[in-house]
């Protein structure tokens, strides 16, 4: 029973620690391999949480975040189905994650402004 008491004490400590350090990090704020380079999509939200935030929260329950480009959307559909069973994901979260993984727009590197301007200038010169 002594260990159980220790466990209960540690749990309380953890709760206090969380409350004391309470911040509201978003996935875009993380770095290194945890970085997902995502921005919450306002269009589709589950319980006022962005799909990216939902992705981050569910994955980080157990492991580091994997890059969205690691698998194709079709492969992700199967893997998230697997995760739905293992992590007991509700249907609405499951669908939100599928939408998030199918939409790869945020992962496409943006063209630097100067290059884009140069391209437009070139195009306008050729245009009649």
């Amino acid at each position, binding site marked *: 029973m002594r260990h159980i008491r220790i466990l209960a004490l540690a749990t309380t400590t953890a709760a206090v620690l*969380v409350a004391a350090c309470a911040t509201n990090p978003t996935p875009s704020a993380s770095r290194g391999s*945890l970085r997902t380079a995502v921005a919450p999509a306002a269009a589709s939200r589950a319980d006022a949480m962005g799909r990216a935030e939902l992705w981050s929260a569910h994955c980080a329950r157990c492991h580091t975040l994997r890059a969205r480009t690691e698998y194709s959307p079709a492969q992700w559909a*199967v893997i998230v189905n697997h995760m739905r*069973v293992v992590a007991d*994901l*509700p249907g609405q979260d499951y669908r939100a994650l599928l939408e998030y993984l199918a939409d790869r727009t945020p992962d496409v590197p943006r063209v630097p402004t100067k290059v884009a301007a140069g391209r437009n200038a070139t195009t306008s010169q050729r245009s009649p």
Partner: protein
Amino acid sequence: MTRVVRAAVAAGLAALPLLSGAASVAAQDTTETRRLRAELAALREELSQFQDDVDARMTALRDSARFAQAGSNRFVVTGYGVGAFTAVRDGASTFSSAIAPILLWQLNDRVLFQAEPEFEMAEALETNVEYAHVSYLALDFLTLGAGKFLTPFNIFSQRLHPAWINKLPTAPLAFGHGGIVPGSGVGAFARGGVPLGRTRLSYAFYGINAPELMTMGEAAGAIEATDAGEARAFGGRFGLFMLRAGLEVGVSSQTSDVAKLAGADVSLSRQLAALRGNLDLRLEGVISDAVDGPFAIDTTMTDQFFVNNRREGGYGQLAYRPSLAESRVLRNIELVGRYEWLDRPDWRGGEMGNDTKRYAAGVNVWLTSSMQIKLGVQRTINTIGGNSRALLFQTATGF
């Protein structure tokens, strides 16, 4: 007459420049026309080449799309691989490796078959099927399944055991082989999740072939999992996961003819700006109350005895990774510490009554989001059989 001739000559002389100008304009027109025609021809040629190029690309695209087109069922292989070295002070040092491919076969949107065979190589090749079951997504909040599955009792066995997820090279005593928690079982389950605002309620109920209590011989008192027992064990887990806080708490229970188990788990995984990194806290505890006997060391059951057959185990693990640090090297280093224990009943006649405490600390280097190198030290304290120290090294890759 002379006047007329003069006038004609004058007019002719006056028209001469006009005629030469007209001839010059005509020549210029011809040159421009030729240039334009040449340019038009070049453009036509370029357009033709462009058209050919587009046609070729479209053909290639159609071909690749035809090959990439998903069928109604999909097959994906993921999993993880391990290479490890363990050096025990005053003991044996061992290299080992393992691979555990996870086979996922989605027949349609609702039916999924998943299996994890495991191949481990140390002194000899050991094979095992961690799980192999089919699941059916009946409702948004209900999944039904049958086969061999990781029992949803606490969280280590079903979610944290893969080597690329586990932050130390070893599994906690109570959750590894010979521990208290049933890692997997053959049977059926019903589970799911329900959204409650920004909290997720998860539940799982299962029925599996019951474990067997060994009553005689050297292994008397041990509880062995069996895949074909006659009796059944029933259990389940309720969990609450607070999405924003990254905090999950759960309680589990399992009952059978030979033992009753109760467990609790707390996990916190979140990024804390104040600590400039990620904090990962895992706390799990389990109590097992098994049949008190009779037991006998000899197989004839002549010298029988009873014990208070109660086991208790658990662990607390804390990991910190400075993922918000400026240094890229620092961001990929993780520090981890774990304390664990496994108390067995006071036993007459051998190591069955051994109580164990174990301390472990490690440094992990993350090479990618799913590949880490772990270096750790571990000190084990036994009430029977002596203590030990070990150096642990492991590379783990999720794929």
